[in-house]
């Protein structure tokens, strides 16, 4: 609730700005960049002689209390290191939390009052390119990207650069995230399963049985019927990841959809070979029917879609299952375990579809982009900041308990696509005594591996092949435990189970989507949520399909077909 007071003021400010701004002031031709570049050779890590200013946007969680006393979001281990290493002074043009940051960025775009650099998503990037508000970074990337980062970007088979290349120019610096971020797993309270003598649910029928037991058989042993079977998305959350936001969907039902071979929100190959939108297929209807059934039986959180924070019941030990990617110890699980050391959350690649397969939908590697304002005097500074972060992560300079990496200015993730799987195997070898840190000396792209190896034995007790919470020692180092538990538990199903991923044919917007997609998505999201929660009959799905096609869906499908053919 606390975040919602701003919008009216923002709206008012927006109209003011729109009314007052004109294009004349911002379009003065750029001259100053040339002199800076020609005088010195490009050095990805070079320190500036004179202090250089950069204003950025940053996401800040106001409830975060990680920073040591005296430090601020503008003055902490990260900004001080940047000042020392690069002689760059970082300033915040604006700081906001989560959803508010997206509003603030939209406002900055609309009023053409951009920070020198900021991190944006794919839709915002396209908007900025079309409005001609951001700088061409082709030369910056070529001259200043550090070799390690270049390797990671180029190892995506061109996907990362394609996402930022417009008319042959590189318009933004793409982040590259691990594949694992796009694979949604079943997280389950193993201690509840054990207490009720149950096995992890492999089929939808078993999932229902387990959820019923979690709701009805008092797994937390307090004598009250107050537990949730399956946590659902929070208010404003997504039921499933889609082709534009293809990864890190928390508490959605992605694996339940894929257990029905349904891939809503993705562009799939139809029977005749031409593209078709997954949300309008009969499999999606089936999956919705099954979710509707689970919800009506009270096995999914009755307050899903209305709750402000879906992770609260998980932290409070009131929820037994949820779906999310591997990194959940970075999410609610650290606090859940602090509250209840017995909370034995484990991850599985479940439930399976009728053929007994786990078929998750796959994400695109780049969903976050650093853009630089047109006419900013030092367009290479953001690239240098990213080089600097990567290098210092390799060298383990920063202590996450003195403020998380979110405080690093313009942070986007650079991870080799198999970072999680590779790290799981490496740590297993180290624990088993087969390998030591020296064996991985050449794997420099896996930047956090050395510190992972250094700390694993202090937080993981024997037996090393069991991942139960009782075999961990988080008190020794909560920061290292969060990462190691995420990797070893959340990464285990990715390494130990075989599965085939389903990709979307397209991960970006086509031209007509710019004006129509918002309303089509709204139609889809609302209809599906209402069907699941019983506010509309299942048959609404059929009229949704018709409306969707009529309101531009058919034309957009045609555009997708053309886009793929190119």
């Amino acid at each position, binding site marked *: 609730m606390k975040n919602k007071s701003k919008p009216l003021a923002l709206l008012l400010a927006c109209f003011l700005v729109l009314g007052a701004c004109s294009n004349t002031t911002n379009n003065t031709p750029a001259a100053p960049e040339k002199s800076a570049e020609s005088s010195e050779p490009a050095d990805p890590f070079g320190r500036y002689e004179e202090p250089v200013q950069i204003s950025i946007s940053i996401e800040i969680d106001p409830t975060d209390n990680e920073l040591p006393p005296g430090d601020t979001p503008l003055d902490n281990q990260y900004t001080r290191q940047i000042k020392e290493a690069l002689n760059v002074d970082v300033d915040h043009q604006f700081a906001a939390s989560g959803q508010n940051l997206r509003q603030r960025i939209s406002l900055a775009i609309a009023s053409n009052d951009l920070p020198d650099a900021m991190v944006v998503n794919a839709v915002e990037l396209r908007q900025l390119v*079309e409005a001609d508000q951001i700088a061409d970074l082709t030369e910056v990337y070529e001259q200043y990207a550090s070799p390690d980062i270049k390797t990671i970007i180029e190892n995506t088979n061109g996907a990362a650069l394609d996402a930022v290349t417009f008319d042959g120019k590189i318009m933004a610096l793409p982040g590259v995230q691990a594949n694992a971020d796009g694979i949604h797993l079943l997280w389950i309270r193993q201690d509840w399963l054990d207490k009720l003598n149950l096995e992890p649910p492999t089929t939808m029928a078993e999932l229902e049985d387990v959820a019923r037991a979690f709701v009805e058989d008092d797994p937390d042993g307090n004598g009250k019927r107050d537990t949730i079977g399956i946590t659902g998305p929070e208010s404003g959350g997504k039921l499933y990841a889609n082709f534009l936001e293809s990864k890190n969907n928390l508490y959605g039902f992605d694996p339940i959809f894929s257990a029905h071979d349904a891939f809503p929100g993705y562009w799939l190959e139809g029977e005749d070979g031409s593209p078709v939108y997954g949300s309008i297929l009969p499999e999606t209807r089936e999956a919705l029917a099954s979710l509707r059934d689970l919800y009506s039986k009270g096995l999914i959180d009755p307050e899903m879609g209305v709750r402000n924070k879906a992770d609260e019941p998980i932290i409070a030990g009131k929820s037994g299952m949820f779906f999310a990617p591997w990194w959940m110890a970075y999410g609610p699980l650290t606090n859940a375990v602090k509250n209840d050391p017995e909370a034995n959350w484990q991850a599985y690649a479940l439930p399976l579809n009728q053929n007994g397969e786990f078929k998750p939908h796959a994400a695109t590697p780049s969903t976050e982009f650093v853009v630089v304002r047109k006419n900013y005097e030092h367009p290479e500074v953001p690239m240098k900041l990213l080089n600097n972060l990567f290098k210092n992560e390799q060298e383990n300079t920063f202590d996450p308990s003195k403020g998380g990496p979110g405080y690093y200015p313009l942070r986007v993730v650079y991870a080799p696509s198999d970072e999680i799987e590779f790290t799981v195997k490496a740590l297993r070898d180290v624990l088993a005594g087969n390998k030591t840190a020296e064996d991985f000396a050449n794997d420099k792209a896996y930047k956090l591996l050395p510190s992972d190896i250094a700390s694993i034995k202090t937080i993981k007790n024997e037996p090393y092949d069991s991942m139960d919470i009782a075999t961990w020692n988080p008190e020794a180092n909560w920061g290292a435990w969060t990462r190691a538990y995420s990797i070893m538990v959340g990464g285990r199903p990715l390494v130990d189970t075989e599965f085939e991923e389903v990709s979307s044919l397209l991960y970006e917007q086509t031209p007509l989507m710019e004006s129509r997609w918002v309303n089509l998505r709204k139609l889809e999201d609302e209809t599906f949520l209402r069907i699941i929660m019983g506010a509309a009959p299942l048959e609404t799905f059929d009229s949704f399909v018709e409306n969707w096609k009529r309101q531009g869906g058919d034309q957009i499908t045609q555009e997708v077909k053309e886009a793929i053919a190119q």
Partner: protein
Amino acid sequence: MRMKGFAKHYYLMLIPGFLWLFVFSIVPMFGIIISFQYFNPGKGILGSDWAGLEHFKYMFLLKDTQEVFSNTLVIASMKIVANLIAPLLFALMLNELRLMILRRWIQTIVYLPHFLSWVILGGIVLDLFSYNGPVNQLAALFGLQPKLFFADAQLFPFLVVGSDVWKEFGFGTIIYLAALTGINPALYEAANIDGAGRWRSLWHITLPGIRTTAVLLTVLSLGNVLNAGFDQIFNLYNPLVYSTGDIIDTWVYRTGLLNLQYELATAVGLLKSVVGFLLISVSYYLAYRFVNYRIF
């Protein structure tokens, strides 16, 4: 002419108001142009290409537009009626209360919510009606199943109107109480002597005595009929109740600011302004007609 000496001061006093109006209402009107353009923030309002009436055509195609306009009208009308009746009844009841101290206390307590913002009150209301909240616990005593009140689209407008009345009726009561004290007590004494009971004097003296106030307040609120309350709805709604709870202002906010559809949002906002302008003109005329209320 008689007032010439005073008039200057009166006009001087208008200046801050006009300044405010100019800065916050006239200048932003410049932005209306966006709805006729393919707005490109990089080129600005003066440089963007013209789109003609295209966004307006698309606006009328969208089901959303009809929905938000009708939602706005329904919720605002319900609020006008409820905010007329509730304070009136409460003022009448309070007026019958003979114990002065109690009356003052009640008055103070009921108008307190008026001073709190919807961010706070919205949180309180959501908590009250949440799945494990007091309302559901009370219902459970009568053997009823818990219900997610704020996920029910049928119920949502009533919850909005109800909570708005709860916030505002105490404040509205003050105006009616003031009108009630303006009634000449001699009328009641005369009626008493003529043998009129409480109901009679209520019907023939009290109600006619505050009629002008009631009519005036109603007529003036007509001008607000398209302002169904952004703050309140924004703090209470969720996607499940968009179908009955999404109003023009919340829709424009989401479409324009969250989804970067500036042109469409501006077009809808403009339509709202046009309709609102007509309604204000009509209500001002009505106020003049029925209760002779004029600004100048």
